[in-house]
């Protein structure tokens, strides 16, 4: 089996383990969370009504905690992940698949925006060396990392929507609705990717092949692209996969702030409403996406590694 195939198999096995572990942890977390689903749905109106508590399946009957695992497995085998407690007669799989595209779009767009921006700024900072310009770029990264999403949202909404009327404040009407949420999601990612790029590139800059290229008078962009970035592409690709998980987690807040009907918002709503099947299904879907993207980026890292095989210590190309 080739190195990549082995890596893929290992990643898939790890993904299964992660998903099963996550499901078990979430199940335990829901079991100890205060608040029962019936009271969550009906509020005070549920008092004294003798309504049976919904369980992990389509039938409404009270069963002991230790039998719930069997119910979950049965629901998964049936392919429906059960039905929502809160949304009448809605299959969890339908709720998840309806909400997922918006979240995927936001996360993918944020990553697409953040990666070239972060890499470009990080490389530029590294090639500048210590000095004024690098300080400014570092300041940009720090701001991106430090600014809370709520504050950034408020600022963008005030200037771009309320004052200049350039963009819609919230909602999911058309493509323009995605601009501000994508910026909010991308901002911390720019900071993370930029700082990592700067750090990795700074290790490459003093090496002989880079000094030679610069001494030959090659343009900065050629030095950066062919002699610096190519050597840090592999670890950077893995890192971008990790950054994606942060972007995906950020959708839970961003979708609520911008009233976007995505899976992040749906999962938050379900959790607060103790709609456990939907919350579990939503979280597992997000975990699955995260694991898939992480696997892809790890595969890309292995493929980009100039040594091939995808294993062992990393060393820059050209280094003797």
């Amino acid at each position, binding site marked *: 089996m080739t190195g990549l195939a082995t890596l893929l198999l290992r990643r898939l096995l790890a993904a299964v383990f992660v998903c099963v572990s996550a499901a078990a942890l979430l199940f335990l977390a829901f079991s100890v969370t205060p608040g029962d689903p019936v009271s969550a*749905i009906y509020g005070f109106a549920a008092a004294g009504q003798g309504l049976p508590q919904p369980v992990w399946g389509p039938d409404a009957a009270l069963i002991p905690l230790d039998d719930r695992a069997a119910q979950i497995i049965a629901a998964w085998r049936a392919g429906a992940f059960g039905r929502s407690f809160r949304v*009448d007669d809605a299959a969890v799989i339908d709720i998840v698949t309806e909400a997922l595209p918006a979240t995927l779009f936001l996360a993918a767009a944020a990553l697409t925006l953040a990666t070239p921006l972060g890499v470009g700024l990080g490389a530029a900072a590294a090639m500048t060396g210590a000095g004024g310009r690098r300080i400014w770029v570092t300041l940009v990264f720090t701001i991106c990392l430090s600014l809370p999403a709520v504050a950034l949202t408020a600022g963008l909404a005030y200037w771009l929507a309320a004052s200049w009327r350039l963009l819609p404040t919230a909602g999911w009407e058309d493509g323009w609705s995605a601009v501000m949420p994508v910026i909010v999601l991308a901002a911390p990612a720019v900071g993370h990717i930029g700082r990592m790029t700067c750090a990795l590139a700074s290790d490459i800059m003093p090496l002989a092949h880079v000094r030679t290229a610069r001494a030959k008078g090659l343009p900065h962009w050629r030095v950066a692209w062919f002699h610096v970035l190519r050597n840090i592409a592999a670890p950077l690709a893995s890192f971008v996969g990790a950054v994606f998980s942060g972007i995906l987690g950020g959708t839970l807040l961003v979708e609520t702030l911008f009233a976007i009907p995505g899976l992040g918002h749906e999962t938050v709503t379900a959790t607060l409403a103790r709609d456990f099947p939907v919350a579990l299904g939503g979280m597992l879907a997000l975990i699955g996406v995260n694991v898939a993207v992480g696997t892809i980026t790890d595969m890309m890292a292995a493929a980009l590694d100039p040594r091939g095989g995808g294993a062992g210590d990393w060393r820059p190309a050209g280094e003797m």
Partner: protein
Amino acid sequence: MDGLKRRAAGVMVKWLALALLSALVAATANAQTLRSNLRDDVPNVDPAAFNGVVGNRLLALVYEGLTAFAADGGVAPALATHWETPDQGRTWRFHLRPGVRFHSGRPLTTADVEATFRAVLKARRLSLSAPFLDKLVGRDDFVSGRSDRLSGFVTVDSLTFDLRFTAQVATFPFYPFFIFDSGAPAQWGADWHGKHSGGTGPFRLASWRRGQEARLEANPDYWGPRPAIDVLRLLAVPSVETALAMFEAGELDFVTVSEPAHRLVASNPRYRGLLQVTPRKQMRFIGMNSALYPPFADPRVRKAVSLAIDRRAVIDGVYGGLAVMEPGYGAGSLAPDTAAGEFPVIAHEYDPAAAQRLLAEAGYPGGHGLPPVEMTVLDSLRTEASYYAAQMSAVLGMSIKLRVLDRAGMNSAANAGTLPLFAAGWTADFPEPLTYLEALWHSASPFNQIRWRDPAYDALVDEARQSVDDTRRRALYRQAEQRLSVAGAAAMLPTPMNILLRHDNAKSVLITPFGHLAFAPRRAAGKP
């Protein structure tokens, strides 16, 4: 010549078409569309099922009941023009309004009312209206499946029906229902309500995208005054800050402001002149369960807690002045305006010295001897509850630990009766004091979260429930409220007002004390 005529006719047809098209465009352009927010997700729009507070207010624009809440208190005719009881509330005869049509075009008949009651009782998801039919003859047999008909519903003719109860139900006309088109399930299937409009209300549900938007269009065949707008778009915006930002950007024409933003809205000079506020039909209180915290068994301790709270400070500091402290236990606030003056003003005073004196008389001078207690509150009441806990500590010397729960956790704990000290509220379901006095304090009420027990009080409420005579019933309410006051059943708290922020183009929109949106003048009570 024939060719000329044909050409002339062709030109005329084209000009006519253009004129019609222009008129249509003009009409469409002149059609007023208003946009507003839904502060919570509405999980379903089934009129026979539980929809939550926000869903209920949405459906109140599409569906109507036999009666409606009148602006001056009490009820006004709606789908029923008048009603009477020949036997002190054991039987009620309703006369439906002739000429009313559902949004489908079908006429309203008694069969639709019966179908609604059957659906409410058999709804998979508990309906808020189901308890109102608890005493209907045949209800138990129907719900259990022993019978497929509601024997207590008797059709007299297509517009008249009798309801027979196992006991006197004097307040049945006050109970709200959403009467829907009985032909809808047959025509559109069991899940018709998400895709079709089956009500008689001033708006029809044009479309509903769960978690995104509900679009309502004015009903051109509405039997009452038509609303001043043509289209109402209700957008799901869970964050009140986002809703306010959308309002500022002109993307929402009016906004229902939830409590966390009351002070922000009240203090913003930009919003002055844009606010429409009404007192909310809701009671809030600090509940004290003596079974879980024995010192609360002494009425002096309970009264001391009440006297330790400066409600004016809460109204001004927490709600920016946009809250009201109703006197008494809410009975007067739900009586018709003409009768509200009958209720004595039972004020809730702030008197720390008296509070300390009472506590000392009860055997806890300076709070010594009082065990520590945990106060449980909803997360949205965190700020307010911090003040209450601080006051009780500072004035009474009580050791209080604040526990904040989200809505689900709070509801669950309150329903289970496991809270020794908590802040809670109850929104009126109908415009009669029983909605508070029975639900919150009657010993048999499942909603009696503090497990209040007073047999004499229960007897007063039981008699009121069966008294058709308005004067007698109000006298019983006064006595019941007086008992609660003497016993210091709870420390009553200010209630935030219902607030609507409106741009100039939305001045035709009002929010009622029951939290419903209104687009036309309400009818006065008693007039068909």
